[in-house]
């Protein structure tokens, strides 16, 4: 896959048109992961991909990221088709994906070295982002010495330091305990308030989607389709949304949309006869 380079110039829009994705596991028949996905992620918006396990939401994210080839349909970023991974679409993984042999600082510097930035600029950026995620003093620590929350903050800093126009996040707080998760959600929103980006955020947590997103794309069980796109009422940012009067009702409504799909996904997972 070739490199995709783009001049960082503010958030970009992503257009997904008629994307279908099938994969063939090592043993067995081909599985259709996504079916005719079409959606548009607007510049600067925070879009959550919400759905049950196995619905293909991560697959869609990886297609946007250029890690999987688009075989049917098209995905374009600011009009240009996606042909491979690149620093314009920064990705953050659920299990951090930190390079264990590099220190915190070296992890963050890596993407900057790839972009061939001048030494002074690289170091300055690394400093800034380490500070931004509140990890000053841990520059020379190795990932094995950090807690889960700290590792995720390094992962976030590493991706943000590349100044991508788009942020692709694959259940980034899923591996953290509930308290750390809440804190990280706040931190992410604070960072985005300062440097707006287009964000595609995969989650299976209804409440998390409502706390973070502008719009939520609800996906069906496999093969994943866009069941409905929900506009989130204007309720302020982050945890203050929880205090909004309509919050509970929205959670209820959203969960209603997801619940059937979740049940359906569970049924296919266990692949036994349906209970009477």
């Amino acid at each position: 896959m070739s490199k995709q380079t783009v001049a960082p110039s503010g958030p970009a829009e992503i257009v997904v048109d008629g994307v279908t994705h099938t994969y063939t596991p090592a043993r067995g028949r081909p599985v259709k992961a996504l079916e005719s996905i079409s959606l548009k992620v607007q510049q600067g918006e925070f879009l959550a991909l919400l759905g049950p396990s196995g619905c293909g939401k991560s697959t869609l994210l990886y297609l946007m990221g250029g890690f999987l080839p688009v075989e049917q349909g098209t995905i374009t970023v600011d009009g240009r088709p996606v042909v491979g991974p690149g620093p314009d679409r920064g990705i953050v993984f659920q299990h951090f994906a930190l390079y264990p042999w590099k220190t915190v600082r070296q992890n963050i510097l890596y993407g900057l070295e790839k972009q061939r930035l001048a030494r002074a600029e690289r170091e300055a950026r690394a400093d800034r982002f380490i500070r931004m995620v509140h990890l000053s003093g841990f520059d020379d620590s190795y990932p094995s010495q950090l807690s889960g929350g700290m590792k995720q903050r390094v992962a976030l800093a590493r991706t943000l330091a590349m100044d991508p126009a788009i942020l692709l996040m694959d259940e980034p707080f899923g591996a953290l305990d509930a308290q750390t998760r809440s804190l990280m959600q706040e931190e992410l929103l604070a960072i985005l308030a300062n440097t707006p980006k287009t964000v595609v955020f995969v989650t299976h947590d209804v409440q998390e989607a409502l706390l973070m997103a502008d719009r939520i794309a609800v996906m069906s069980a496999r093969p994943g389709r866009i069941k409905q796109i929900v506009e989130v009422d204007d309720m302020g940012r982050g945890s203050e949304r929880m205090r909004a009067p309509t919050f509970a009702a929205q959670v209820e409504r959203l969960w209603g949309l997801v619940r059937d799909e979740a049940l359906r996904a569970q049924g296919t997972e266990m692949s036994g006869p349906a209970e009477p």
Partner: protein
Amino acid sequence: MGVINRYFPLVLLVGAWEAASRTGLVDPSVLPSFSSVAIALWHMLIDPDLYHNAAASMVRLIGGLGLAVPVGVALGIGMARSNAVRTIINPLVQAIYPMPKSALIPVMIMWLGLGQAAKIALIFLGCLLPIVLSAYNAARGVDLVLIWSAQNAGASRGELLREIILPAAMPEILAGIRTALALSFVLLVSAEFLMARDGLGYMIAFLGEGGVYNSMFAAVIIVTALGFFADRLYLAFMRRVLVWRE
């Protein structure tokens, strides 16, 4: 001081050995007393002859292993990253894998005679396979998300190989090299029994044939100690390189 406690049973063993010899429990022509072996050992250590032989042995070992490591790692990673390489090399690896490498000794004698090249070639070929296999498994097992993160950052194919795959595979590769190190000692000694006119293995065989048993036992002790300390040194080196592990 934990070291003394750890190795104390060896002292007991030596004590039992000496006691058995002194009380006539063992025939001294079959098992010389530890004291006579110790004296022979001392004489050996102050004799430059030992160091000539040791040097000859080490040249072979380091030559063979030193070649096997880069070639093996390159082949193993190449197999993991390139389907073409794997299709070509894999059947050959599968065919050679179950063959005991010591069976190559007669071939080496025929092809390369009794010179240095023969022994280095033997050690090289013998150690190649474990290194190829561990490099292959290690490179295959690199976490996909690490590769994707690097690609996300814009790494080229070459950069991916050098900066991500190689470091990520390093723990397992170093473990494979540790195995190869032990194997290289075995091949070295075997080769020196059969196709050498100097070296530590040759020394042991020569002393045995000459009936100088206390020196023979001393030489065996020296070789055993060498293998042990080489391994310890390598472990320390490994720990240094892999300092990022918990």
